[in-house]
């Protein structure tokens, strides 16, 4: 029997899915082994958890042992000349950049919030606003230590153990526990970025401008007014950014100081940002969000169109941290996000169908974000040579089933186009649609590796159960 005092409610970041789990928070590898021992004795699975920043059910599973690795957060080794760092899995992106920036290094791939752990980011193989240029985080992992459920600790080298490296990263923590990761960071000459903002009147323009910018800018990200219809469908704002070259920033060393990157605590110098979500709450409904989206586009397409300015790395990279606790505006139901990746040639047609389907059902997404991607070699890769559209939907209890049906409707054309889905964001995708995006044999290879590394199928998650299905490595 598992100790009842370890029972906790564990939620996804979107707060729309959660489960009761028996939480262990080890600080050492032996502590992880003890948690596996407890799970084995009770006959329950183990699910891995970092900072819980996946939107849906990636880091939870009902009535299972939850291995929260947040306390394994030590920086183990740092080579400031080469930009190579060894970290434990619980080190967050926040801790990583704050440590390395002073030496002129920045994580090559970051998420929209700095809270995720490196272990979680590798398990989900996250991408950033520079996926076209830098790929996924796994491509910058040189080596990792993998603790198997049996207790065996293996070192997986990206070059000499390539197949395992490509399978472990991005497979939702189904093959083992990453207890150490060696990452190569990216050199930066300044703590500032040069940013250009551009407005696009429709979806075709959004995609075309994104494509044109992808090779000349390090970061490209688009925001779409998901309420706009007809010929304005898919209109939005694009932000391109590049690092400053040596010599461009006269006060480069000042900008590389951590405190120069800290996001301001107030808006307009007076209003505490921690309170801002409360002010946004009255607008968290369809009429309110329609107005907010319209005003944002109006501002960006008039005074903001063509604007060029400098912005700190943190302010540009971590937009989700700009308004603390903003996701609380979606309570009590929380939110889900659906992010699909579609090959370039089909992106306009598929994304138009998705936006129209959401509007037709009376459930337009409150936030829509466009990015450019490139394929990678990871076994459970989510990226394609094309675009992704990430859509945030509020979850309202009486319409929950309809929202899940909308996700299915939006996912079907993605599968038909040869696209893929991003599991880190997912809560509602039917497993058969996810599995249909893989080529013959790819999931069988994962099953074979799972059978070898975790024959008792101790490592499972609700996400893996749902997406990989019965008989799959879950």
């Amino acid at each position, binding site marked *: *029997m*598992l100790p*009842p*005092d370890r029972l906790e409610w564990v939620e996804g970041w979107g707060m729309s899915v959660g489960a*009761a789990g028996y939480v262990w928070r080890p600080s050492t590898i032996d502590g992880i082994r003890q948690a596996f021992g407890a799970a084995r004795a009770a006959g*329950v699975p183990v699910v891995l958890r970092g900072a819980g920043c996946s939107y849906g059910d990636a880091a939870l599973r*009902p*009535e299972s042992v939850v291995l929260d690795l947040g306390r394994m957060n030590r920086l183990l080794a740092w080579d400031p000349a080469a930009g190579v760092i060894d970290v434990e899995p619980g080190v967050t992106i926040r801790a990583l950049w704050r440590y390395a920036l002073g030496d002129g290094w920045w994580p090559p791939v970051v998420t929209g919030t700095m809270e995720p752990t490196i272990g979680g980011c590798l398990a989900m193989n996250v991408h950033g606003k520079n996926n076209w240029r830098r790929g996924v985080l796994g491509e910058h992992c040189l080596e990792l230590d993998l603790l198997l459920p049996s207790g065996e600790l293996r070192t997986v080298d990206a070059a000499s153990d390539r197949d395992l490296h490509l399978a472990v990263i991005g497979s939702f923590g189904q093959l083992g526990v990453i207890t150490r990761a060696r990452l190569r960071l990216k050199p930066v000459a300044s703590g500032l970025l040069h940013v250009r903002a551009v407005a696009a009147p429709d979806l075709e323009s959004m995609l075309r401008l994104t494509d044109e910018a992808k090779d000349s800018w390090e970061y490209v990200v688009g925001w779409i007014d998901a309420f706009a219809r007809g010929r304005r469908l898919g209109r939005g704002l694009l932000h391109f950014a590049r690092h400053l070259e040596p010599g461009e920033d006269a006060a480069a060393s000042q900008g590389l100081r951590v405190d120069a990157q800290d996001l301001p605590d107030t808006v307009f110098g007076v209003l505490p940002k921690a309170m801002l979500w409360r002010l946004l709450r009255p607008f968290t409904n369809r009429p309110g969000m329609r107005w907010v989206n319209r005003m944002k586009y109006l501002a960006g397409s008039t005074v903001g169109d063509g604007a060029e300015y400098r912005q700190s790395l943190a302010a540009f990279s971590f937009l989700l941290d700009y308004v603390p606790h903003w996701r609380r505006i979606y309570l009590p139901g929380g939110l889900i996000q659906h992010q699909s990746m579609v090959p370039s040639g089909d992106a306009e047609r598929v994304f138009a169908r998705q936006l129209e389907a959401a509007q037709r059902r009376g459930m337009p997404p409150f936030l829509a974000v466009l990015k450019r991607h490139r394929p990678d070699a990871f076994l459970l890769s989510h990226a394609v040579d094309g675009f992704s559209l990430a859509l945030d939907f509020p979850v309202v209890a009486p319409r929950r089933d309809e929202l899940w049906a909308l996700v299915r409707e939006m996912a079907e054309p993605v599968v038909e186009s040869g696209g893929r889905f991003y599991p880190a964001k997912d809560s509602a995708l039917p497993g058969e649609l996810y599995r249909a995006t893989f080529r013959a044999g790819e999931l069988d290879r994962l099953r074979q590796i799972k059978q070898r590394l975790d024959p008792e199928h101790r490592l499972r998650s609700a996400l893996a159960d749902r997406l990989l299905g019965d008989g799959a490595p879950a």
Partner: protein
Amino acid sequence: MVDFRHALVIGASSGIGEAVARRLAAGGARVALVARRGDRLDEIAASINGAAGEQRAFAFAHDVGETAAVPELLQRISAELGGLDLVVYAAAIQHRVAFDEFDGVKDQEMLAVNLMGAVAWLDPVAERFGRLRRGTIVGIGSVAGDRGRSANPAYNTSKAGVHTFLEAIRNRIGRHGVRVVTVKPGFVETRMTAGMAKTPWKISPDRAAEIIVRRARRGRETVYVPARWRYVMWVIRAMPSCVFKRLRV
């Protein structure tokens, strides 16, 4: 209103418990059926699963007198269901007691099943739901527990004990978002009321279950079944003892 997806019904082999379990499963919930009679539970589970076309009912044979087994069984049931958001304690017995009969064995049996069984199950459930800050507990009491009627002292006592226990745990964990519902049925067509002479406003178990599940979803604290008993019992509770004892009910 809350939607129940994973429910546990203790005392699910007949009467109100069976009807509640069937209604929850028909609404899409995965339901654990707990009762002493394993064969009867298997029949009910097969019937529910056959109607649903999938496994929604899970049978667990258990005697509520075996209180030491409860914590581990509760954990096993939660794992089997994939969670737990509703627990209904419906196990109860009512021995026939003559007006001048004082049978300690009968009385203690009623207290053991109706009250001590409820305490044994609902203590770990309350601990679990309180820790998780969510969940609904439903205890089936009785209008008989509202006053010390002369007809069946121990049965009345057991149900009064259930009411007080539920109120107490509501006061402990209700503030954390846990709903605790005290159900006080009148006469329901069950084995317990079969052969009783006077059974006014008797309703079917299915009708009782409909009321109970609906009110539990709304999180009502005290539910009379059917509702008209609320007014009757308000009068009876307000009645002075010197008057009540003359009624010989």
